[in-house]
């Protein structure tokens, strides 16, 4: 107490400007422990040099949104005490095959630096990075305290790499390999030793190969802290039942196929296993649901807040029955097999709904595989949901037809959208009733939804839509555009009008060099810009590169035919300079 009083006196004697500077570092660091988000921490680090230093010494988690914006050595130099790293690699359009393989974002150089700078690293969360088996093995052997590995949308590794993780990571709590492209080399990768009991989360839902079920069952039985379990399509109902019996404490469950399993004696056993799971808040998986087994789920649905049916070709009647059991639902992902009728059921059952994603069951084929038509969802389903779910703030909606009036109605009913992603799957399709462009629809969105942070547009759009966006979308951070716009003016409006824009991804639009260069001042405050199949030329990109040396301007050149045209352009700010690992088809200008 005496020391404290002394410091208080010191502070009072000093002039106001100096009071901040004399705040002791140790105290500041203790306080900063409570500052968690990377945005807040960035703000803290900019106050003054002392705060910059206090912040960098106390930071334990670093988030790097673009792995090429900074080098691992720079990160290690600035932050000496990191325990957890989040890294994102490829541009998002690589999810849709627009980025050639072997483009980059290899995790290995980062691991090498981390092995010496952060030997006590605990968590690694990667998105769209390339991760090889060698890297996984290196990771497993280099970090004795390693706890959590999450690989979302990553590629380059096989089940052998996973085997290294399960064999050597003695303190692992989380292993999540969702949505990653994993080469299946067979064999058994679930090699946790019998003494291993620390697992809390395991997600291998997208793995193609069978897992050794006995090993899985024993693992689940001895890991009493297991909260998240998401299995793949090879785990049948009887096996699922056995797992549930061993882990009633689960909060998140991803099932395997929910269809006929000869080994399951009766669905009453299954239902009883589900009724013991009183803590489930998230449910997913449910491939090939058979309506015979669906009711077995009902006892576990009371506390569900997130239901992911995006792998389940469910019909509207089945969905309606299921939703009636889920009164607390906040997030729902479905396939468009539920059709408008299914969405009407959502509207009547899910009043607390905040997020809805409707995925297309059959995005490319014309043929129906389900009974009853299979037309997907339309504007009336969208309107119905908006009427029943006033808390909706996140929507992803794939459809074949939409009207300006419907979208206007939707946002009138739900003005709080933060994420509005509408995908009219037919390219450049106008309002199907009026034959007008969809400009007014997105105009309504940006005028009404002042909190909008993420927007994806589609359908027939002229520059007018982008004028609206530039005029009204003042909080917009991410914009995705495809097959839209009439001239450079469209893109210019957005670049001039949206001060908070961080990510802009554009494909197949008539935007050229003038549009690109109109954003000169903007790109350094953005994470990245992607433009493919637009009207950019090598000259335009070179001019940008010359004028803005702290940007990396990269052109992906896949065919030799047209030398002047810049088919795929990726622009991003970087303090690490040009890439040193660029493959031959990536030209840094």
């Amino acid at each position, binding site marked *: 107490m005496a020391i404290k009083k002394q410091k208080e006196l010191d502070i009072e004697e000093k002039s106001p400007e100096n009071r901040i500077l004399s705040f002791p570092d140790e105290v500041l660091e203790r306080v900063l422990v409570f500052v968690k988000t990377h945005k807040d921490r960035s703000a803290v680090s900019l106050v003054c040099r002392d705060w910059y230093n206090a912040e960098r010494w106390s930071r334990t988690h670093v988030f790097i949104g673009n792995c090429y914006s900074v080098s691992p050595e720079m990160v290690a130099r600035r932050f000496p005490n990191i325990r957890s790293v989040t890294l994102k690699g490829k541009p998002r359009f690589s999810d849709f095959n627009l980025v050639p393989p072997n483009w980059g974002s290899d995790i290995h150089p980062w691991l090498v630096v981390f092995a010496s700078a952060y030997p006590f690293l605990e968590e690694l969360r990667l998105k769209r990075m390339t991760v090889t088996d060698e890297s996984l093995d290196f990771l497993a052997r280099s970090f004795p305290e390693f706890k959590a590995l999450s690989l979302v*949308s990553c590629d380059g590794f096989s089940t052998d790499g996973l085997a290294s993780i399960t064999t050597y990571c003695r303190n692992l709590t989380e292993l999540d390999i969702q949505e990653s492209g994993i080469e299946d080399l067979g064999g058994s990768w679930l090699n946790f030793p019998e003494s291993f009991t620390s697992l809390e989360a395991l997600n291998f839902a997208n793995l193609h190969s069978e897992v050794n079920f006995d090993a899985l069952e024993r693992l689940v039985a001895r890991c009493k802290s297991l909260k998240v379990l998401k299995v793949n399509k090879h785990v049948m109902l009887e096996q699922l039942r056995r797992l549930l019996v061993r882990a009633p404490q689960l909060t998140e469950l991803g099932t395997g196929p929910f269809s*006929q399993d000869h080994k399951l004696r009766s669905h009453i056993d299954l239902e009883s296993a589900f009724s013991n799971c009183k803590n489930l808040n998230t449910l997913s998986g449910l491939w090939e649901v058979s309506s015979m087994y669906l009711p077995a789920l009902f006892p576990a649905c009371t506390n569900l807040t997130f239901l992911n049916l995006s792998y389940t070709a469910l019909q509207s009647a089945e969905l309606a029955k299921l939703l009636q059991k889920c009164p607390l639902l906040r997030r729902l992902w479905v396939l468009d097999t539920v059709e408008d009728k299914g969405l009407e059921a959502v509207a009547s059952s899910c009043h607390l709904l905040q997020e809805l994603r409707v995925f297309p069951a059959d995005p490319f084929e014309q043929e129906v*595989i389900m*009974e*009853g*038509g299979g*037309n997907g969802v339309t504007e009336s389903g969208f309107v119905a949901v908006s009427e029943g779910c006033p808390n909706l703030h996140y929507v992803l909606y794939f459809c074949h037809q939409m009207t300006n009036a419907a979208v206007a109605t939707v946002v009138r009913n739900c003005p709080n959208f933060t994420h509005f992603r509408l995908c009219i799957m037919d*390219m450049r399709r106008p309002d199907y009733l009026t034959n007008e462009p969809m400009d007014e629809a997105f105009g309504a969105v940006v005028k009404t939804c002042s909190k909008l942070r993420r927007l994806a547009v589609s359908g027939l759009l002229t520059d007018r839509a982008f004028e609206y966006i530039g005029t009204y979308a003042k909080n917009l951070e991410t914009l995705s555009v495809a097959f839209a716009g009439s001239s450079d003016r469209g893109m210019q409006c957005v670049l001039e009008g949206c001060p908070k824009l961080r990510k802009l991804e554009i*494909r*197949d639009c008539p935007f050229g060099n003038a549009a690109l260069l109109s954003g000169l001042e903007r790109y350094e405050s953005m994470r990245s810009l992607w433009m493919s199949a637009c009207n950019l030329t090598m000259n335009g990109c070179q001019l940008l590169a010359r004028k803005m040396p702290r940007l990396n301007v990269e052109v992906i050149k896949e065919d030799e035919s047209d030398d002047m045209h810049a088919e795929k352009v990726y622009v991003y700010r970087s303090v690490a300079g040009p890439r040193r690992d660029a493959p031959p088809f990536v030209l840094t200008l």
Partner: protein
Amino acid sequence: MGRGPAERQGDRVEMSTTLEKERSLTELEADYEETALTLGLPGGSRAGGWDQQERKRGFSETVHLSDGSSGIEPRGGGDLGDESPDCAASGAGGPRASKARVVGWPPVRSYRKNALRGCTYVKVAVDGAPYLRKVDLEIYSGYHQLLTALQEMFSCFTIRDRRLVDPVKGTDYIPTYEDKDGDWMLVGDVPWKMFVASCKRLRLMNIAPRAPR
């Protein structure tokens, strides 16, 4: 059903599987002749059953639209009554006639596309044979290809009248399959894609022709 064969052709038929499902295998065995396997659409013309099954809808039969227009062409003079949800639905469904595929459009991630297609490897059991085989239904575009592949796989068969016949033993095999509800169905009763989506395993059932044993 009130609609003639002409309307049925090329339609996405509401699968009248309800009717077909009632037929049990014992009925099959009892009424072998009457249930001679043909692969036409149920109730419709059986001529050239194979071809009808697999024929992709030609331009004139699809809703013909270019990008941007919303014209709707009713088909077959039809009856767009409530009995034909598929007809009305495709009418309202918008321009979905054959379009060139564009890379990465619509923006659906590949793991999602693959997940839906599901595991299309199914086991094939042949009555009387000690071994099972597996086929990937995804790689065939229709029933004919599937039967041809089975014929090659089990090399003792020839295809005759859309059944598999073992000329040496003089036995016929009817292709049947178990669907995802656990029911055993005749192969060929539903459109190919629906079959692929719901088939869990195949069984070539041994039906001896009616000859004295």
